[in-house]
């Protein structure tokens, strides 16, 4: 069999091998490169080349034309040599990429983006993308200045820019990024934020507790090791606080809206918060608070009778569905919700009455005026009468008898008639009339006019609208029954009481030796006398790769993995297409060899070794040359994998490339050399691979 190689076929094989490796490397590298280029170009098209732009300005779409003009103006005026590019418009927001000229790429400019671009029409914020840089997210305000100072002192760092809660570390050159990332992480590592969280509902003076906690920390650590500082701040997580406050309000509103349950416990019975009590009409009550003799509860199942009055029922211990225990308390239920609804209904009725009333009042005032006028007229007539009577009286007594007979008769008559009558009237009537005249009719008239105006005001009020509004209020009152309210309150309470949601929070900054926050938890609980608090540990900031760096890193990784996979696939293809043919032939020829006399040589199959070496040679070279890198796959493993693949091909050579043994034997019988047999008989009808292709140049028939 080895004669085979002495024949000269080895030259063909060597050429084949070299070409295989070159083609394999070029192929694997090429495909990977194509992937790289494609994604790289796409990326560059989207976010510019590395370091080309420094800031993305987010501008409302409708303002983008004016914004563009304004940006160009700012650029020309303040940053000559600037770069500007409008890229994607996403969700109504246009993104302008702005690149400062090198001389303006300074801390002052980058921290003053708002002062330069704040007046650009439609501006909606910005994102810094200075490159090369290292981004630190979520920097705790307490250490920000310290951090900036320390990081700026690192060599390779140009300056540090404050960007909201982030810090952007601008580097002198791209290469230093990994090194500086490590150094920055080291700096961050020196700090630790220890957080003490108290569940919702605990009124904690965070400043005071913070100082207490500091003291506890100090007393429990060896001196000089670390520095501790109370850095509790309110602004941290404001949104959540607001939400939690809203939840508390909601809970209180629901609580007052629910039926009020008061319990008068049996003196022999001890009630606990959370205990369930069942009433005669199957209402289920949960005890929510015990304040000395005063016990409160809420309905968690069932609805009470709708009543304005307080309902009093006997309550029994609840032992499970349908089971009740001993009597524990008298339970008083006041249905505030029902009362509210009742009050609203009553208001509506009252309003309707009011309207009626105002009409009636207006009529009454009008009537009063009539009366007043009549009264005044009567008064005036009385005066006239009084004057006449006085004249008559004087006439009679003075004897002025120039009057006619009739006049005299009348005078007589009148005299006779009124003598007694007038006597009284005149004497007493003088005074009465005076007092009548003293009544201020005009004033009365004015006050009547005032009343009238007020009544008409009342009439002008749009009672219908008010009624509609009150009706609306009534309809929008939550249509919840007590059980639903009770369950909602319970739910809100569990949520608020949950450990995930911070109530009050105290933050301590630790510089130096880190502490074990879980070990401290029990200590704090004890010393601060609050068994519900939790301790957490957080970092003062996180180094995160900038988006582009991350994308490129992934891209490079993908490229290497793809190249690696392709190397393996390529090797398998080459082995199957080319070398399986060679090996099946070699195996056929070897079968005819006189078996070796030496035993070790019989155990040692040179073909397997040959295949293995060949496989690992091809795979390793292609893998190496194409700069492949598959995670967790080391070079020795690649060598081994190649060997295994080669060995497998030897074992299954005939399956991939059956030997045409008869043609082969004919070739032998005709006195052809092994090389000739390979070139003229074995390879030409074999699979179309590189071997087959190369053979065309050698083949004579």
């Amino acid at each position, binding site marked *: 069999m080895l*004669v085979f190689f*002495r*024949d000269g076929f080895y030259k063909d094989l060597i050429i084949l091998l070299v070409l295989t490796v070159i083609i394999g490397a070029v192929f694997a590298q090429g495909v990977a490169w194509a992937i790289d280029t494609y994604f790289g170009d796409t990326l560059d098209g989207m976010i510019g080349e590395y370091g080309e732009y420094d800031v993305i300005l987010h501008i409302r779409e409708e303002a983008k034309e004016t914004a563009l003009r304004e940006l160009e103006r700012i650029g020309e005026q303040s940053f000559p040599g600037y770069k500007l590019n409008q890229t994607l418009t996403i969700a109504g927001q246009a993104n302008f990429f702005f690149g400062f000229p090198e001389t303006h790429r300074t801390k002052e400019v980058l921290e003053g983006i708002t002062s330069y671009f704040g007046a650009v029409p439609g501006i909606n914020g910005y994102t810094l993308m200075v490159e090369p840089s290292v981004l630190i997210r979520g920097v705790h305000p307490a250490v920000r200045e310290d951090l900036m100072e320390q990081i700026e002192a690192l060599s390779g760092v140009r300056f540090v820019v404050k960007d909201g809660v982030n810090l952007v570390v601008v580097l002198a050159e791209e290469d230093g990024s990994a090194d500086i990332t490590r150094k920055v992480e080291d700096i961050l590592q020196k700090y630790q934020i220890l957080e003490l969280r108290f569940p919702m509902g605990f009124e904690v003076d965070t400043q005071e507790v913070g100082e207490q906690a500091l003291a506890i920390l100090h007393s429990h650590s060896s001196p000089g090791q670390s520095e501790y500082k109370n850095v509790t701040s309110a602004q941290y997580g404001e949104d959540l606080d607001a939400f939690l406050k809203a939840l508390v309000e909601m809970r209180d509103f629901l609580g007052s809206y629910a039926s009020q349950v008061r319990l008068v416990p049996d003196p022999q019975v001890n009630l606990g918060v959370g205990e369930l009590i069942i009433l005669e009409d199957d209402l289920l009550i949960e005890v929510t608070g015990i304040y000395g003799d005063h016990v409160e509860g809420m309905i968690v199942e069932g609805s009470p009778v709708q009543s304005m009055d307080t309902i009093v029922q006997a309550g029994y211990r609840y032992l499970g569905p349908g089971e009740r225990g001993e009597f524990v308390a008298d339970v008083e239920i006041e249905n505030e919700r029902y009362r509210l609804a009742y009050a609203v209904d009553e208001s509506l009725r009252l309003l309707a009455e009011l309207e009626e009333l105002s009409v009636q009042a207006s009529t009454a005032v009008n009537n009063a005026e009539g009366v007043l006028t009549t009264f005044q007229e009567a008064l005036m007539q009385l005066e006239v009468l009084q004057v006449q009577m006085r004249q008559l009286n004087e006439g009679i007594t003075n004897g002025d008898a120039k009057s006619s007979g009739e006049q005299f008769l009348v005078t007589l008559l009148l005299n006779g008639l009124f003598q007694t009558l007038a006597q009284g009237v005149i004497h007493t009537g003088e005074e009465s009339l005076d007092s009548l005249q003293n009544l201020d009719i005009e004033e009365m008239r004015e006050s009547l006019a005032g009343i009238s105006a007020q009544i008409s005001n009342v009439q002008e009020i749009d009672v219908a609208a008010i009624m509609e509004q009150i009706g609306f209020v009534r309809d929008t009152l939550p249509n919840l029954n007590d059980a639903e309210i009770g369950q909602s309150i319970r739910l809100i309470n569990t949520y608020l009481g949950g450990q995930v949601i911070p109530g009050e929070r105290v933050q301590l900054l630790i510089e130096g030796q880190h502490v074990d926050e879980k070990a401290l938890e029990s200590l704090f609980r004890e010393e601060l006398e609050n068994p519900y608090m939790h301790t957490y540990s957080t970092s003062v900031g996180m180094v995160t790769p900038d988006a582009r760096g991350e994308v490129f890193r992934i891209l490079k990784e993908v490229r290497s993995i793809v190249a690696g996979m392709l190397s393996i696939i390529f090797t398998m293809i080459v082995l199957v297409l080319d070398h399986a043919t060679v090996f099946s032939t070699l195996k056929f020829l070897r079968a*005819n*060899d*006189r078996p070796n006399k030496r035993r070790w040589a019989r155990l040692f199959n040179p073909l397997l070794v040959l295949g293995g070496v060949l496989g690992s040679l091809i795979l390793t070279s292609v893998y190496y040359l194409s700069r492949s890198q598959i995670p967790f796959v080391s070079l020795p493993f690649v060598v081994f994998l190649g060997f295994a693949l080669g060995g497998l091909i030897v074992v299954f050579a005939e399956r991939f490339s059956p030997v*045409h043994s*008869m*043609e082969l*034997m*004919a*070739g*032998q*019988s*005709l*006195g*052809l*050399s*092994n090389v*000739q047999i390979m070139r*003229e*008989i074995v390879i*030409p*009808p074999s699979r179309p691979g590189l071997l087959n292709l190369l053979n065309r140049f050698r083949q*004579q*028939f």
Partner: protein
Amino acid sequence: MLEIRDLRKSYGKLVALDGVDLTVSRGETVVIMGPSGCGKSTLIRCVNRLTEPDSGTILVKGQDIMALDSGELQEFRRNVGFVFQQFNLIGRLTVLENVMFHLVLGGMDLEEARSRGRVVLDKVGLKGAEQRRPHELSGGQQQRVGIARALVTNPEIMLWDEPTASLDPILVSEVLEVMEELVRTTATTMLIVTHEVSFALRVAERIVFMDKGQVVEEGVPKEIFADPQSEIARLYKRLLVT
């Protein structure tokens, strides 16, 4: 011309040749007969080392075949024509190429090889079929191509391994005719494995009977069939009578 001594060959535990001795003189036609699996093919392939014997001696014109290196072996094989039971033609080559490509590979001028190819094809009655492919031909025609291929080098020895065994009975005669013609017209030494008893009787100068890897009887055909000594010979005689 050919001298085989104590030739042995085993395939693992199976003994195919169990000490065969055989001598063939120049120009002699020897027919080997024996039941299937008795080692005939193995024997005839050992002659030009298509099968490597385990031990024994093969002398051709006094030359030790077992001692040849690969180049010498190739040289030797070019002087030995071999006709296979399955024809063993090269499927992708034309009929003409099949009979002359080895001449070219052996260093002969292309035109010379072609004309010699045409001559042998004419001799086996395949004139006009030069440009056809083996699979387009009948079994008899294919075997005649096989014969032409063996013949084209003017070999001193021709080895035939059951040349008609895989042919339809009707096609057998056209091959046997060519063979008989060859035996009569050439001086080539022939070693023929076949089951064609009447053919053997007509052309063989000597018949060798084999059984279980050994030669059990040999002699002039008429004498052997007149008085067979071995079981095998008796069986073949019966075949002749019926």
